[in-house]
């Protein structure tokens, strides 16, 4: 017997929650308990009185699973709202990465040149290393990190995706 795999789509969800103890564990645990995937998850409080946090979850799964993920999130008592940004029209996705490369000579020059093309900023430099800060859509970060691998990549830190819908309405 073999286990069949289904084709999956990537979706970005914006989730507004009560900023209370255990909420992150509740959400992360719901994903593992029901066998859903988390590609990235970011969280920070966003309201003036620190009562509400916004969680951005990048997930993947077949369409019926994405629908279930949203319903299961809405079922959690501290969850105010869930918006599927991928479904609800144009939106902006951004991620920040800190990328450390080490090397000398031709590799070092090439790293600088690529960073310039990708509009990455140098936030630390020694004679044999750079730390670049780069912001952009996840694909851009992905490509940049891929290029850096060829010129002496040492370490990467990424924030995960934050996203927001275009236009005047709120999520």
């Amino acid at each position, binding site marked *: *017997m073999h286990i069949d795999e289904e084709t999956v789509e990537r979706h970005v969800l914006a989730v507004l929650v009560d900023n209370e103890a*255990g909420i992150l564990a509740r959400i992360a*645990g719901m994903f593992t308990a029901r066998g859903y995937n988390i590609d990235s998850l970011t969280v920070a409080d966003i309201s003036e009185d620190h009562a509400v946090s916004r969680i951005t979850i990048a997930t993947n799964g077949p369409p019926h699973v994405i629908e279930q993920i949203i*319903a*299961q999130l809405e079922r*959690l*008592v501290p969850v105010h709202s869930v918006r599927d940004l991928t479904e609800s029209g144009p939106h902006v996705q951004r991620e920040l990465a800190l990328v450390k490369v080490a090397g000398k000579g031709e590799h070092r020059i090439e790293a600088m040149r690529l960073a310039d093309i990708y509009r990455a900023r140098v936030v630390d430099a020694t004679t044999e290393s750079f730390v670049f800060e780069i912001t952009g859509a996840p694909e851009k970060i992905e490509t940049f990190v891929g290029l850096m691998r060829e010129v002496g990549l040492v370490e990467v830190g990424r924030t995960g995706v934050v996203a927001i819908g275009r236009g005047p309405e709120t999520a």
Partner: protein
Amino acid sequence: MAEKSGADILVETLLDLGVDTVFGYPGGAVLPIYDALYEHPKIKHILVRHEQAATHAAEGYARSTGKPGVVLVTSGPGATNAVTGITDALMDSIPMVVITGQVATNLIGTDAFQEADTVGITRHCTKHNYLVKKPSDLAQVVQEAFHIATQGRPGPVVIDIPKNVQVAAAEFSSNAARANTRYQPQTEGDFKAINAAAEMIMNAQAPVLYTGGGIINSGPKASETLRELAELMGCPVTSTLMGLGSFPATSDKWLGMLGMHGTFEANMAMNKADLVVCLGARFDDRITGRIDAFSPNSKKIHVDIDRSSINKTIRVDLPIIGDVGRVMEQLLAVMKGRRFTTPGYDEWWSRIKGWRATNCLEYPEDKEEIMPQEAIRRLWQATHEREPIITTEVGQHQMWAAQHFDFESPNKWLTSGGLGTMGYGLPAAIGAQLGNPDALVIDIAGEASIQMNIQELGTATQYRLPVKIFILNNEYMGMVRQWQELTYESRYSNSYSDSLPDFVKLAESYDWTGIRIEDPADLDAGIQKMIETDGPVLVDCRVAKLANCFPMIPSGAAHTEMLLTEADVRGTMDDQAKALV
């Protein structure tokens, strides 16, 4: 405002909420609460013998009365022992509030004595849970907990209270309004959707109502509304295990239970229907059988208060989110407004008549041994006029009870459906008896299941509860043995109930009456003696050892591929089927 201790605030808030019964077991981390209870005799505390039993007793109390069940246990092992019952309540949507003691806040995380991460452990087996860190939060949390447990789709809520929070004081005044606004589930169905549903019903040629535990949860009025709806629609009605009793078994519209051990006519009707109206049920795998062959030619309407139940396993054409009782009322109003006249559905009913003719619940007669199905039928005949409350354990006896004990009204059938917890029946019977002191409460049990919470015999004795236990003793974990016959060529790996106690003597040692029935000729007299004896009675009814529960849809099969008798059993299955539970 006066200051009170956390323990007093808790107990007074429970009183404000109308709590009269608490099932629990004391321990170090709840001593302050137990001391507060000592001062408040209005709350009746039922001391169980094991915390799991406290949760099942609370479920039995809740399911038979419609009120939330309340549990009080200590930290660490008290809380972990309660986890099975909490999960059971989550799966079967039973309103329950579980108060657990916790080590003092300054000790949390130090591996203190009897410390367990109760909120962590119960996070995914509760509807919601809390760790209360300040006594001033307690009243608000307890009120919200009861609101969440009982509103929307009911479920268990855990409140973990550290010992120092029980001792420390905060300002409190009884009956203060503590508005809760953050959990407000939708109960009213969308008007457009109701109209669309009426349209689909009017166009149907072969409709069937598929009902579930949601009707019971919605309250007795929903069962009345269902009867009215079925009458107006003139169509057949089937139900899940959890929904039994919401529709009377004596009705000519009743098809019996559907699903794995449902009737041939119910499953065939689901398969051949052109419209399935699902009312407060959730297309569980025990109902659907093989998903791709489930009711292939029907349009489907799904009424559920929990949005996540919609399209979870079966895609439906029309979802309606709301309280099923309310939605049925709305639907009736719309159909009456449109002057809906009850169709005859002659062709549909004549097909159903054909399926009914298989007499799928028939079983072989036996003069030597008591057939378990026969025992249930006789039990029903002897007791049904008293409208008994029936609880069960889990296994063959549970399915036989569901098939052969007919129910006329809701809240009389208490069983562990979703989680399938052996050991549920006796404590549930205790809880039901407390909530319904004058009712005849019978736990239909198996000899294996009953041993999982057998210690609760003592609880019934202590509180003089006249519960009856009717054990169908076949000396096997019968459902396990049945599956081994179906799947593993009758290799009975560990399914024999060896070293059984003498149940009659065991009962007597707890001051119960014990009765043994061995001969079919003694069956009626034994049952009669059980009913007529005051106080708790245990019946050890020895039944045919190798009887199996039919009809049955084997795992991975479609509704049309039912095994009707022993003769249909092949003894092996392919790996796809073996991998399904």
